[in-house]
């Protein structure tokens, strides 16, 4: 058994071909967490204004092991342990960002952004606009979202719709290790606050990742797979599940395109609409609860566009149930779209329409 096979079995997930490295650079195999760590190291070594602060990012190595032993390489000044103070962490990040630094703040679980929401929504996102351009806030906020770890309702949410609803905040959801690295490095080029919603099920998975100081463009969707029968638009861990579902669908003779928006704000609607037009059927997949979810916005964009007249079937959303994430593994799995759910929904869409 090769190391990769061992790893795949250990993680319980195959390495999807559609989530490999973007072209144009040498690559190496690394986990999603290692890819983020690589980006942190590159940016902090290259730019004295970049630093990371958050809870337990130093000696502890990060709650999900993202920083690992980075504090030994970069020191406690640049890999900075904070008190358990999410509002303070983001707020100090805002102040530092306004005054010449490029802070990266880590919120240990994206659920805890609720503690920091004033600084995210009322301060970071609005300062450039409401101050008439007198200040910028080049702040990067990293926060893991998603369910699947048995951590229940306060540690498992998918809150991207909250952030996408705030003008002035860029929101990205890396679905691969390569994008986790490339988006973080791109976010550090951006003079605006960028919220990076990582997924905790991906941290230990291995991906092909570009080496060196690379970028994944913010505001550009990725077509992960192409097929003529339907277009699946999926975010976060659901991109991987959709790619796996697409392979199973292909075995049944159904060919799916999988589009990963990558960036929710600003959304690359053009790429999504172009891929919808090509197949005339669209399945929108998100882990987040359905009501008021981001895919409802994608649905509305499609419905209001010229792509609407190319639809052969109603737009279909496949979302998390409108419940808090439960603890028991069978319940947790039941409330968010799994590979089989995507296969069923896609098959129905193609067979019935």
């Amino acid at each position, binding site marked *: 058994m090769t190391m990769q096979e061992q790893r795949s079995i250990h993680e319980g997930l195959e390495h999807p071909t559609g989530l490999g490295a973007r072209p144009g650079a040498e690559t190496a195999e690394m986990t999603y967490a290692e890819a983020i760590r690589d980006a942190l190291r590159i940016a902090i070594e290259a730019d004295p204004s970049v630093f990371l602060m958050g809870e337990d990012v130093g000696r502890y190595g990060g709650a999900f092991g993202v920083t690992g032993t980075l504090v030994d390489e970069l020191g406690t000044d640049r890999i900075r342990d904070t008190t358990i103070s999410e509002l*303070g962490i983001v707020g*100090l*990040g*805002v*102040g*530092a960002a*306004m005054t010449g630094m490029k802070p990266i703040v880590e919120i240990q679980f994206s659920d805890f952004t609720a503690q920091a929401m004033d*600084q995210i929504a009322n301060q970071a996102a609005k300062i450039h606009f409401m101050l*008439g351009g007198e200040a910028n806030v080049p702040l990067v906020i990293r926060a893991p979202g998603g369910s699947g770890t048995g951590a229940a309702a306060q540690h498992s949410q998918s809150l991207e719709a909250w952030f996408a609803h705030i*003008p002035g905040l860029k929101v990205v959801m890396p679905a691969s290790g390569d994008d986790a690295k490339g988006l973080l490095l791109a976010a550090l080029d951006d003079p605006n606050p960028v919220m990076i919603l990582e997924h905790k099920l991906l941290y230990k998975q291995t991906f092909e990742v570009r080496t060196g100081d690379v970028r994944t463009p913010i505001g550009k969707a990725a077509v992960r797979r192409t097929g003529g029968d339907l277009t699946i638009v999926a975010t976060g861990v659901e991109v991987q599940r959709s790619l796996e579902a697409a392979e199973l669908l292909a075995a049944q003779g159904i060919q799916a395109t999988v589009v990963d928006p990558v960036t929710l704000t600003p959304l690359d609607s053009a790429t999504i609409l172009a891929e919808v037009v090509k197949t005339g059927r669209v399945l929108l997949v998100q882990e987040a609860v359905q009501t008021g979810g981001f895919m409802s916005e994608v649905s509305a964009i499609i419905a209001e566009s010229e792509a609407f007249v190319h639809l052969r079937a109603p737009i279909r959303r496949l979302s998390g149930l409108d419940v808090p994430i439960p603890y028991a593994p069978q319940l947790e799995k039941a409330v968010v779209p799994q590979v089989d759910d995507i296969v069923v929904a896609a098959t129905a869409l193609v067979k019935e329409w």
Partner: protein
Amino acid sequence: MQIVTDRSAAIEALGTLWRIRRFEEAVEDLYGRGMMHGTMHLSIGQEAVPTGACMALRRDDYITSTHRGHGHCIAKGADLERMMAELLAKDTGYCRGRGGSMHIADAATNNLGANGIVAGGVPIAAGAGLSAQMRGTDQVAVCFHGDGAMGEGAWHEGVVLAAMWKLPVVFLCENNLYGMSMSSAKAFPLEQLSDRANGYGIPGVTVDGNDVQAVHDAVETAVARARAGEGPTFIVAETYRWRGHSKSDKNLYRTRDEIESWRESNDPIARFEKSVLEAGTLTEADIQTVRDEVRDDLRGAVQRAAAAPDATPEGLLDAVFAPTTGAAR
């Protein structure tokens, strides 16, 4: 710095006191005549705090301010015409009409902005202090906030982190006795509000907030401590807001006698003028000259601001994000 006994410092302080007072009166007048939109939070009666504090600062030191922020902006050196233009919804205003009274910032004077959220500026000031510390400058951040902010979690978190890292920050509470209508004496059962500092392991000082020299001296000491790397200080400046919290305030939570007693016996400008006259630093004529200059400056600022082009909705969507300029490394 001796302000009361130094002629040029006394003239500077008096000019700032009157600029704040006259600016606020002009705003109140324009609002009353229907020429100004929205709401406003006037700082009449509290002028000595920003005046004394900012005289202890350098131009490159940072401040964060509050919803009641006109005085802080003016004391840090903001342009009266651009401030007035903002309040009059003009394109030439500090925020181009996008922010209004509660969001004036001034990059030229390192004023990081007023804030519509109580205690919103507390962690931001700490972050500016962190930035100064990491960049190895000796800049200091002064966080102006009200007594109402002491009930907010943001105050706690900002002070905790500033204390842990010994950040060069001065948390300066303008205790005007009420957080909107809530009495701070009732809300915080402490002998003195500055006792709160004990819980954070930083010095806490209470000063007469209507005494320019006292405020200045307390801030000067705190700033020296911050520049020396010894960390933050919490200062409570006791003062009083003559006007209501905002235009909706009917003053039902305090008595007319209370307001009158502060106005008559504890007007920070009258007190300062009396002290410089008694010290022989300025004459009545000097004081009148300062008043006249401020009146003329402000009249000119209002006239020019009123004549400026109105803010327009064009370009609003493009103003949400700062333009990206490519790779930063």
